[in-house]
């Protein structure tokens, strides 16, 4: 029973982590209809920005976190302005956009490795053990609890933003038919720029929290992206609610999957679930 409780907690942590990745990933996909590989490296940007400001410059942790979130958002925004927006204007295909985002991902990942080395690093100096809360005999650290709370608040906030603001309606209009959105006077390029900023900032939050929980590495973006993209596809790519559902489903399947088999198989479980969905329900859980 205690083991089950720990598995449930681990599943919730994994689901919340994937949710933080899928929120931005799906937001950008919904507005642009291309699979943005660059999204993964933005998590690393968030983590490394906090690392740089706290450890190298010695700025207050909370200030660094805010800079990290805004920094990731800005990098995403600039990538859109200089790369993706230019390609959109040239009416580049989604495949071209995908390749360009992969290229930008690799370039930025290499820059991070050159500046910060490829070593695994810890964001915080502290040698203190993380605070641990016990639920029966199961345990959760305060960072992991923060990941769950942040995922809940980020999901709630984004849903509110899209559902109740004029900006949200404009994003939905672009997602439905970008050409018609232009005809009714929506500056789609500008709105997509803001979508990139918001989505990338959420990816930055994911990277910072993962950094606090397990540490950072320039290559951390790829693993995060693959898990997030898988969760998005399972839930219904481009669908915000689907992404959240897919994230938690993937979290539970992965964690309960390694109950009886070695944890090295976790990745195999993830992609087996993906393949099953691609064959039997390629539109995901939430798409019609």
């Amino acid at each position: 029973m205690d083991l089950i409780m720990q598995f449930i907690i681990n599943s919730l942590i994994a689901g919340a982590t994937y949710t933080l990745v899928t929120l931005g990933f799906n937001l950008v996909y919904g507005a642009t209809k291309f699979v943005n590989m660059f999204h993964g490296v933005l998590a690393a940007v968030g983590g490394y920005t906090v690392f740089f400001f706290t450890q190298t410059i010695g700025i207050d942790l909370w200030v660094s976190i805010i800079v990290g979130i805004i920094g990731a958002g800005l990098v995403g925004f600039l990538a859109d302005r200089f790369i993706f927006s230019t390609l959109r204007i040239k009416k580049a295909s989604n495949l071209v956009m995908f390749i360009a985002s992969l290229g930008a991902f690799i370039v930025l990942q290499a820059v991070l490795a050159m500046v910060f080395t490829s070593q695994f690093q810890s964001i915080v100096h502290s040698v203190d053990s993380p605070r641990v809360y016990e639920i029966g005999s199961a345990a959760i650290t305060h960072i992991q609890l923060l990941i769950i709370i942040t995922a809940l608040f980020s999901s709630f906030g984004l849903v509110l933003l899209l559902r109740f603001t004029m900006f949200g309606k404009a994003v939905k209009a672009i997602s439905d038919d970008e050409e018609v959105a232009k005809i009714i006077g929506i500056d789609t390029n500008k709105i997509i720029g803001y979508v990139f900023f918001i989505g990338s900032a959420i990816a930055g939050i994911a990277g910072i929290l993962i950094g606090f929980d397990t540490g950072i590495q320039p290559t951390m973006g790829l693993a995060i992206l693959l898990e997030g993209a898988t969760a998005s596809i399972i839930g219904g790519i481009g669908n915000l609610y689907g992404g959240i559902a897919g994230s938690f489903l993937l979290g539970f399947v992965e964690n309960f999957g390694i109950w009886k088999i070695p944890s090295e198989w976790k990745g195999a479980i993830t992609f087996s679930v993906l393949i099953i969905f691609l064959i039997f329900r390629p539109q995901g859980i939430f798409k019609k």
Partner: protein
Amino acid sequence: MAVLQTNKLEKHFDGVYAIDGLSIEVPKAAITSIIGPNGSGKTTLINVLSGMLDIDGGSIVLDGIRLSRFKSHEIPMYGLTRTFQEVRLFNQMTVLDNILVVLTERNVFSALFERHSNLHFMRTEELLKKINLWEKRNELAGNLSYGQRKLIEIARALAMEAQIYLLDEPFAGLFPEMLKVVVDIVKELKTRGKTVVLIEHNMDLIRELSDYVFVMDSGKLLADGKPNEVLNKREVIEAYLGE
């Protein structure tokens, strides 16, 4: 007085001219129909006028402003809006939101924090009641019938409060009672001093509604004038009606 002019307008696709040196003047506060056989360049002209396609040559003069290159999203600033031959709504949004989105705050920062005002809701209610679809306001636009979707597209154009309405086959595929609603809307636009440009194949409606007619063939202007004069011209009958 012309509110919309094209001067030697050109648009080609891979060397094939869809619009070939077209010069027309659309009169203000009138209903102008553009007719012509399939492939004559009518829809391409609307696409060019609404900024969806770039111009390859010539220019457009909108209410005295000469435009040679402009972006689609700037078109409403010039007081121009359009509908599509194949209805294009925001299918994943409700009927209500399809109209409300037109009333969206154009400043992105304001839009991030603002919600729709009562004025927006009242305007939306008025428009949906005009097309008899107020009861359907909470349904997804994509789930409605073709005719209903066509009416919503017209209501969306009305919400734009434009000066020039480019309506691409607005009567096609409508039941008689829906057709009457659209005819009344077009007439009302004219009485309100708006300019309407219709692409239409129904000759009875063209005779009934139009003040002026342009006939296009192979991207060129074949004839223009009052409906009864133009529709009786031999070259128009030959080109358009194939007689």
